[in-house]
C-alpha cells in the first residue's frame, strides 16, 4: 500500500514538473558571456497564414524583438530588433532564412524547427559590465508581415483614378485579421549569477 502511495507521489511530481516545463516558453541561458534564448514550444512556421503563404512560394518576413529590462521592469537595458525573411522551397520542401540586419546571414535546407531555432539563436545578446546580482527580465515578441501594409485599395487604383470596383473590393473584403504574432513571452526576474547556475524559464 505504502509502495503504491510512493509511486503516485513520484508520478504526480514528474507530470507536474513536465507540465510546468511545457508551459514555460521563453528559456534564458548564459553561455560564452552572452545571453541566449530558446523558444522550444513556440512554432511560428507550423500553421496559419504565414505557412499558407510560404507553401505558395511567397517569402514571409518575421519581425523579432528581444528586450531585456534591468533593476525594474520599466528600465530597458537592451533591445534588439531584427527581421528574418523565410521562404519555403517547393521542390526540396525545406526552408531558407535570411537575417536582414547587419551582419546579414542566411541558412538554407532547414526543417521548420531548425529554421525557428536558428532565428531565435540570432537574437543572443551581450550584456557588458553588468553587475551579476542585477535583477533582469526578458521579453520576446515575434510578428509576421503576413497582413502587410499593401496598397490602400489593393492596387486597384489606376492612372484614371479611384474606381467603384476598387471600393467594392475593399468594402466586401473581410476585416483584415490582425498581423500574426507570437508572444510576448517573458522570463524573470533572474540575475546573471542565477543563470550561471542554471537556465531561467518564463512563460
Amino acid at each position, binding site marked *: 500500500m505504502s509502495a503504491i502511495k510512493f509511486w503516485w507521489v513520484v508520478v504526480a511530481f514528474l507530470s507536474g514538473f513536465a507540465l510546468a516545463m511545457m508551459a514555460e516558453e521563453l528559456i534564458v541561458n548564459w553561455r560564452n558571456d552572452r545571453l541566449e534564448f530558446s523558444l522550444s514550444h513556440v512554432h511560428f512556421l507550423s500553421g496559419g497564414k504565414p505557412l499558407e503563404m510560404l507553401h505558395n512560394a*511567397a517569402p514571409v518576413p518575421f519581425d523579432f524583438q528581444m528586450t531585456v529590462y534591468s533593476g525594474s521592469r520599466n528600465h530597458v537595458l537592451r533591445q534588439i530588433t531584427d527581421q528574418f525573411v523565410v521562404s519555403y*522551397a517547393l521542390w526540396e520542401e525545406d526552408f531558407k532564412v535570411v537575417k536582414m540586419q547587419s551582419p546579414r546571414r542566411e541558412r538554407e535546407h532547414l526543417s521548420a524547427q531548425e529554421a525557428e531555432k536558428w532565428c531565435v539563436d540570432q537574437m543572443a545578446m551581450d550584456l557588458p559590465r553588468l553587475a551579476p546580482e542585477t535583477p533582469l527580465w526578458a521579453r520576446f515578441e515575434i510578428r509576421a508581415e503576413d497582413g502587410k501594409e499593401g496598397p490602400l485599395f489593393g492596387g486597384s487604383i489606376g492612372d484614371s*483614378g479611384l474606381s467603384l470596383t476598387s471600393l467594392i473590393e475593399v468594402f466586401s473584403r473581410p476585416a483584415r485579421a490582425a498581423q500574426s504574432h507570437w508572444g510576448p513571452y517573458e522570463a524573470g526576474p533572474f540575475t546573471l549569477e542565477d543563470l550561471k547556475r542554471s537556465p531561467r524559464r518564463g512563460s
Partner: protein
Amino acid sequence: MKTLWLLALILAAPLSACKLPDGEEKASPRLNVNSRYTVESVRLLGTDLKISNALRVEVDRIVGGKYDLSAIEDLADRIKSEMHLADIKISVTRGTTPDHVIVNLEARQQQQKFDLNVAKFVYDSKEGWNGDGAATMNFHENAVTFGLVSDNDTLVERYAGIRARFERKSVGTDRVQLRFEFDSFHTQWNTATLSEAPLSEIYRTRQVFTPEATVVILPPLDWSFGVSFDRLGVPFSSTTVGGAAAAKTESSNAVVNTLRYHQRWGSAHDRREQEVNASYIVRAGTGLLDSDRAFTRHLARAFYRFRRGRHTVRADFAAGRLSGAAPLYERFVLGDSEMLRGWSRFDLDPVGGTRLLYGSAGYQYGILQTFYDTGAIWDTPRQKEARQSVGIGFKKECFQLAVAFPLGSGRVDPIFYAGMNF
C-alpha cells in the same frame, strides 16, 4: 534661374539611370529560395476572356524565366486592370519537371461591366472644391464613359461641364487603340484674370471634340496622336457691330501628339519599388484645320519615385513653351495642387504664361510627407523669376492632406490641400 536649371538636371539624373533598378531587383529575389526555379507555365483560370497581345508578351517573358514573385504580382495587377477584374489570386505549384513551377492566376470575379470612377476630388483653401468623376460601361473591347467635371485648379479658368467618351481598346491589333471624346464646359473667371486679359480672349463656353489614336510602340512606350477641335463662345470678340463688341464663336483646332513612357520596377507589395513616368505633348493649332488660332505648345513632364520600405523619395520636373496666338486654356499655370503648391496661380500670373519651368523634390516616411517645389512662369525674359515653396502633410497613395507655404513672398499665407488627385 540657374538654381532651377540645376534642380532640373539633378531631378533628371535618376531618369537617365533607369537601368539601375535591375541591380536592385536582383537582390530581392535572393530572399526567396524559389527564385532558383524556372517558371514552366502561367495559367489564367476562372475567366474565358482573352488578354491583349501586349500582356501575352509579358506572360511569355515570365515563362521560361526564373520565378520572380514581384514580376508576377505586377503582371496580375496589369491583367486585373485591363480586364476590369475585381481580384486575381496567385498560386504556385510544382511543375511537371524538377525545379520548375506552375503559376496560376485565378480571376476571382467576372469582368465589371459598369464602373464609377473619381479621377479628382481636391479642396484648395483658396480656390475651393474641384471634382472630376465618370461612369463607364464596358462591352467587349469597347468602353463608353460619361463624366462630370468642375475644375478650378489646372487652368486659369474654372471650367465645369460634361465629358462623353468612346474607346475602342483594340483596332485590328491590341497595339492600337481609338478614342473619341466630346467635352462641353462653361467657364468662370477670376477677377484678376478679367482685369489683365483682353476682353476678346474671354470665352464663356468651350466645346471640345477629340478623335485620338494610341499606338503602343514598345511597352512601356506609347504614342497618341489625333486632332482637337475646340469651339469657344466669345461674348465680346474684337469684331465690332455698330461700334460694340459682338458675340462670336471661335475655333481653335489643333493637332495633338503625346509620347508617353511609364515604367515600374517592383510593386506595392515589395519592399522596394521604383517608377518613372515621362511624357512629351505637342499641340499645334493650324489654319490647315480651319483654326482661328495658330500656335504651338510643347510640354514635357516627368517624375521619378523610389520607395524602400516606408521611405519614399520623389522628384518631378516640367518644362513648357508656347508660341503663337493660343487661347487662354493653353497657357501654362503654376500654383495649383500639383505644381508650386503654396502659391496662388492668380498671384503669379493671372493669365498664365508662355514659358514654364518647374521642379520638385519630396520625401515621405509612412504617410508623413514633405516637399520642396520651385518653378518659374513667364512671357518675356524680364518676367522670369524663380519661386519656391515648401510643404508638409499626410499622404497615402492618391489621398493627401497638406499645407504648403510660399517662400520669399514676404508673408506667411499657407494654402491647405485635401483630397485626392491623379
